[in-house]
């Protein structure tokens, strides 16, 4: 049954979005074989183009978050961190340059735009990156919801780390607590006031990744940041692309007390919501302890934890070990809807 129109769930990062991209954008893009590049068909965090014995990594992202300012950050920080992180997830933590295009709605407050720009600049400094080119457009009142930011980034690396490098026996490490960004946004939208405050984790991860790769020397074999669709989507993609099964140890997934409470009260699983300052690493088992130590030594990786492993059974599926039993982790189709008790 084909639907003729785009629906909101097509943008939510889950199964529906991947199907849309495959059908509309990738179908017919037979560029993967040419000169060994990792292109659109791979649907990785970015593209990698061989440049002699190194790789040029390229990525682009558009940002449409509402609300534009949220606890822990704003769309500006999100735009910069998101692109820096996509490059880092490909194994390219040293950002060469960023671009930023802004489309803003008529009537958008100038003070907000300046605040967003200040955020972007601060995040760039944190990441050691610079916006070298940009564009600005204004659309009429009502033609756009506030503001849309698009950022592109380019970097060079000796080694590309794809989503698809897992083998049975590899260990999965998450760099910190899960569900922070998605639940902070959800709570902000639904006016849930929480003591101790839910805060987005939005942050550039390239320095953290640099440290992990330095400790790992070739044993980090897969990396992905669990943005839209959450950890569930990221693990599904890694399992599918690597043709392995994944067993997720739910009791090991780090959660803040606030995220756990908000998740229970809203009826939303923290595994299904976006993270903007976390990464999942697939690591050869023998190197896991070293990588974990390197992550935990870094301010952004204090809560890093081993959360699962790749297995040969049930390729493409993610099984959750809940501590009391097991279930299949189903890939979310669209945006999770809150079910407030």
């Amino acid at each position: 049954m084909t639907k003729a129109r785009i629906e909101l769930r097509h943008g939510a990062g889950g199964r529906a979005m991947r199907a849309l991209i495959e059908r509309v954008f990738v179908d017919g893009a037979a560029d993967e074989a040419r000169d060994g590049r990792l292109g659109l068909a791979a649907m990785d965090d970015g593209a990698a183009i061989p440049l002699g014995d190194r790789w040029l990594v390229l990525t682009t992202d558009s940002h449409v978050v509402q609300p534009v300012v949220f606890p822990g950050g704003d769309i500006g920080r999100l735009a910069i961190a998101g692109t820096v992180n996509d490059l880092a997830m490909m194994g390219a933590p040293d950002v060469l340059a960023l671009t930023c295009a802004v489309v803003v709605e008529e009537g958008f407050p100038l003070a907000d735009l300046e605040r967003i720009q200040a955020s972007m600049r601060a995040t760039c400094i944190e990441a050691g990156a610079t916006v070298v080119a940009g564009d600005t457009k204004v659309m009429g009142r009502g033609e756009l919801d506030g503001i849309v930011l698009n950022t592109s980034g380019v970097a060079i690396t000796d080694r590309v780390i794809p989503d698809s490098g897992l083998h049975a026996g590899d260990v999965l490490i998450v760099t910190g607590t899960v569900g922070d960004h998605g639940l902070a946004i959800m709570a902000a939208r639904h006016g849930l006031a929480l003591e101790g405050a839910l805060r987005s984790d939005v942050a550039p991860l390239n320095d953290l990744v640099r440290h992990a790769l330095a400790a790992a020397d070739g044993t980090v074999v897969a990396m992905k940041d669990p943005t839209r669709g959450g950890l569930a989507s990221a693990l599904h993609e890694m399992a599918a692309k690597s043709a392995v099964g994944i067993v997720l140890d739910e009791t090991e997934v780090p959660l803040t007390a606030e995220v756990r409470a908000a998740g229970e009260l809203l009826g939303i699983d923290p595994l299904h919501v976006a993270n903007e300052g976390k990464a999942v690493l697939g690591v050869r088992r023998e190197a896991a302890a070293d990588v974990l130590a390197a992550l935990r030594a870094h301010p952004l990786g204090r809560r890093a934890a081993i959360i699962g492993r790749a297995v040969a059974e049930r390729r493409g599926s993610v099984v959750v070990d809940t501590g009391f039993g097991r279930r299949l982790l189903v890939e979310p189709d669209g945006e999770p809807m809150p079910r407030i008790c």
Partner: protein
Amino acid sequence: MCLGVPGRVVEVDGFLAVVDFWGVRKEIRLDVVDAPVAAGDYVLNHVGFAIRRIPAEDVAETLALYETLLAELDAGDPMAADVRGELGAAGAARRG
């Protein structure tokens, strides 16, 4: 319907109570609760009505389950790591 998380009564005004669920405060009605309720009591909530005042002797037990759970997941807390170790050891002892 949610699993019925017990909440802590913060204040009572006639048949209305403000109840705290891990920092989220909601107004709950006391029309059908089975015992008089005061601030500090714990109640079981269903669709906005308290249906049970959980007795004091059960409160610690009920609270412990949630707090142990929350503490266990705080991996950076050395004390919580001890708790987890103890439970794991208890399990191992039972298996051995």
